[in-house]
C-alpha cells in the first residue's frame, strides 16, 4: 500500500486570518505543490477571500514548524505552516 501524503496544518494570523476567514485548517499537500511559494499560489486560487489574502505574496511572512522560512522552502515533512504579515510586536 502506498502511503498518502501527511496532513499539514495551516495557520493564518492578523489580516491573513481575517481575509481568509480562517485561523487554522488541515489539508493534505496538493499535487504539484512543492514549496511554500507554491502553496501560496494554490491557496490564492481557492476563492475571493484567499485571493485577497495572498494578492501580494512578497509581503507575507512564512513559518514552517514555527521557524521563519522563505518562499522557496520545500514543504515535504512539514507539520505546520503559518502565514502572517510583517510582525509588529514589542
Amino acid at each position, binding site marked *: 500500500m502506498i502511503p498518502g501524503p501527511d496532513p499539514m496544518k495551516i495557520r493564518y494570523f492578523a489580516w491573513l486570518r481575517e481575509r481568509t476567514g480562517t485561523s487554522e485548517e488541515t489539508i493534505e499537500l496538493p499535487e504539484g505543490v512543492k514549496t511554500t511559494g507554491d502553496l501560496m499560489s494554490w491557496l490564492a486560487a481557492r476563492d475571493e477571500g484567499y485571493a485577497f489574502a495572498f494578492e501580494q505574496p512578497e509581503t507575507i511572512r512564512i513559518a514552517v514548524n514555527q521557524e521563519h522560512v522563505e518562499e522557496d522552502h520545500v514543504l515535504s515533512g512539514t507539520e505546520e505552516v503559518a502565514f502572517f*504579515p510583517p510582525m509588529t*510586536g514589542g
Partner: protein
Amino acid sequence: MSKTSTTDFTVRVQAEDFDVLAETEILTKGRKDVGAIVTFTGLCRDEGGALEALELEHYPGMAEAQISKFAQQAVERWPLTGLTIIHRFGKIPPGDNIVLVIATSPHRRAAFEAADFLMDFLKTKAPFWKKEHLREASEGTWVEAKAADDADAARWDAPKTK
C-alpha cells in the same frame, strides 16, 4: 571562573499584566555581583486621545520559541547575570504595559546593549501583531511594520565571516 554554561533567562507570553519591581527583585535578590540593571517597559500610548485600545495577536508556541531564541543569543553575546522578557497579548488600553525586558550584568554597557537588542528583535521578529482600535472608527486597523524597526534590528548583525 570556569563556568561554561550561560546564564538562565525567563520568557513569558501572557495576557496578565506584569510587576516590574517584583520581576527585578527576582534577578537581584541575595546577589552582590550585579552592577547594572536596565529595564525597558513598553506601554500602550493613546495617540493624542484617538486610541481606545490596542489588540495584540500572537502565534502561541512560536512567540515563546522566538523570544527564547533571541534571549539565548543575548546571554551568549553579553555577560549577563539575569534576563527576563515578558510580552502580553490581548486587548490593552492606553497607559497599560505591553512588554518588559530586564537585563542585569556586572557592567552597564552589557545590560544596556542586551535590553536594546532584545527590544529591536521583539519588534521585528517575534510573531505578534498589533491592531489599533480608534475611538472614532468601528473597524480596527492593523499596525504596519516600520522600515526603521528593521534598520534598528540590522544594527546587531554580526559581520559575515564567509
